[in-house]
């Protein structure tokens, strides 16, 4: 388990969000030059050091679900700027530019899918859309996905990749934490399994709501997982942070994760868990 040994400490908060163009890619962690096709085949994990590259919702859908089984729901939900928010430029302009650039409408894709033949409802967040931030639409789509899982009585998967709640929607973003958590509470009362998958990064309001509420919580290796961002903590307490702070291994060690799963095993391990929950004991 090589990834446990990696001691390199980085506080660079925003590693590259997208794979660069070209035939070759340099590993952000060990510097290895990797043939892009090879990296794709390895599910975007460095063959040399096991660094997990950040990937998009599209790639996770390909990795996790049976071929062509993912059917998107609520694809047309779009953001409304009800605060008329403006910093250096209007929020709605920033949003529309992101829509154009990414070809996505928001920072989460939701749908029904099959995972090793198990029916599931899934919500896959995407960091490339405004840092995977949770505004009204993300909250509403996640909430509807939870309701869908309840309606279909199938397990729910949420894959988080998010810097937290979206500031541009102020209090409305904050309330999405309450909304999604409330829906999950109802799902739990109905005994529908919920598996939460944390990827790099999962912080802020996303962690402090649905990400931390799974029956099973698993994380990819070396993902940044926390409530406050490392920079804010460092500033507040005025001292350096311990090695490995807020990384998957640290969070597991402190008791807030069930397991760390290498991307190569992600689908198979989740399938095992789904098998377990679906199994009926003899009586």
């Amino acid at each position, binding site marked *: 388990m090589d990834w446990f040994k990696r001691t390199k400490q980085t506080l660079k908060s925003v590693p590259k969000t997208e794979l660069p163009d070209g035939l070759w890619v340099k590993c952000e962690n060990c510097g290895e030059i990797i043939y892009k096709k090879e990296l794709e085949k390895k599910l975007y994990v460095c063959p040399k050091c096991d660094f997990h590259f950040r990937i998009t919702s599209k790639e996770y859908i390909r990795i996790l679900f049976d071929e062509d089984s993912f059917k998107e729901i609520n694809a047309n939900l779009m953001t409304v700027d009800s605060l008329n928010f403006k910093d250096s430029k209007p929020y709605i302009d920033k949003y529309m530019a992101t829509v154009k650039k990414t070809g996505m409408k928001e920072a989460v894709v939701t749908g029904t899918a099959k995972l090793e033949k198990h029916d599931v409802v899934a919500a896959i967040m995407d960091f490339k859309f405004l840092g995977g931030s949770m505004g009204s639409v993300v909250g509403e789509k996640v909430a509807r996905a939870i309701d869908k899982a309840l309606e279909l009585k199938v397990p729910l998967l949420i894959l988080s990749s998010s810097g937290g709640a979206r500031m541009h929607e102020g209090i409305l973003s904050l309330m999405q934490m309450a909304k999604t958590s409330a829906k999950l509470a109802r799902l739990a009362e109905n005994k529908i399994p919920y598996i939460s998958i944390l990827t790099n990064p999962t912080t802020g309001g996303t962690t402090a709501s649905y990400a931390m509420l799974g029956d099973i919580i698993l994380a990819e290796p070396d993902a940044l997982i926390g409530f406050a961002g490392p920079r804010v903590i460092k500033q507040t307490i005025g001292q350096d942070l311990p090695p490995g*702070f807020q990384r998957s291994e640290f969070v597991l060690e402190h008791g807030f994760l069930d397991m760390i799963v290498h991307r190569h095993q992600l689908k198979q391990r989740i399938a095992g868990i789904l098998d377990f929950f679906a199994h009926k004991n003899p009586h």
Partner: protein
Amino acid sequence: MAKKKQRFVLEFEKPIVNLEEKIAEMREYALASGLELEDDIKRLEKKASQLRKEIYANLSRWQRVQLARHPQRPYSLDYISRMCSYFEELHGDRRFADDKAIVSGLAKLEEFSIILIGQQKGKDTKENLYRNFGMPHPEGYRKAMRLMELAVKFNKPVVTLIDTPGAFPGIGAEERGQAEAIAYNLFRMARLPVPIINVIIGEGASGGALGIGVGDRILMTENSWYSVISPEGCAAILWRDASHAPEAAEAMKVTAPDLLKLKIIDEIIKEPEGGAHRDYDLAANVVKEAILKHLRELVKIPPKKLIEQRMEKFSKMGAWKE
């Protein structure tokens, strides 16, 4: 009323305070000299009242944030001591520690016995260090939840007083699962089978506020603020400079009137003229009456329906199109 000797005055309060001091001086002078100054004093008092009305009717969002943070603003314990005929504080989360940034206990509010939970700031540096400036650790949220479970067990309504600059961002807080503690409270509060009333009495910063902020009624005192992040935090990220906090406060729409318009809160609780710090007794009395009004409504609703309505309430929050 705040003590005169160490009164803290905000920039926009200065004209009012100057005038008030002048009036007080004239009173003293009149008394000492025996001169008849009553007419002049009355005239000035009228002017002061006019000035107060003008200034407080046109507060910017940033000015309200400053009032919410006023060092002499009443905090949870100031309200509790004035509102409740009985309060027995219960300490500790029975897991790790007692978080001094949250006070919680058994309380009597007129005809009701309730569980009362409030975030608590300090009045001076020493007290603030003790209270961690009102920034709870995970054990604070877990203590709050322990008391809420007590409320469920003995069928008591829950009232929470929210006043925090945020959940504490520190190493220990992260090690002990700040995010999990808050997330679990949201999860559980959403389905708690007793009435819950949340009152924002000062600062409502982000998940740290929401962690005790899910309920059937969300009330907010007039000069409180509540948002997804502090204006400084927002400015530091989006403007790359915390000094742009006033603009961030405007952009995020953080005040009580904003939140009423956005259908997040149910009611604005009027503060004494000039802000809650000008008259603790009056401020507490108005908050108490508001809580009682809603409690009297909520206790009539069967738990199942209460939870359904709560779900409905939070389901509607947000803005989107499709």
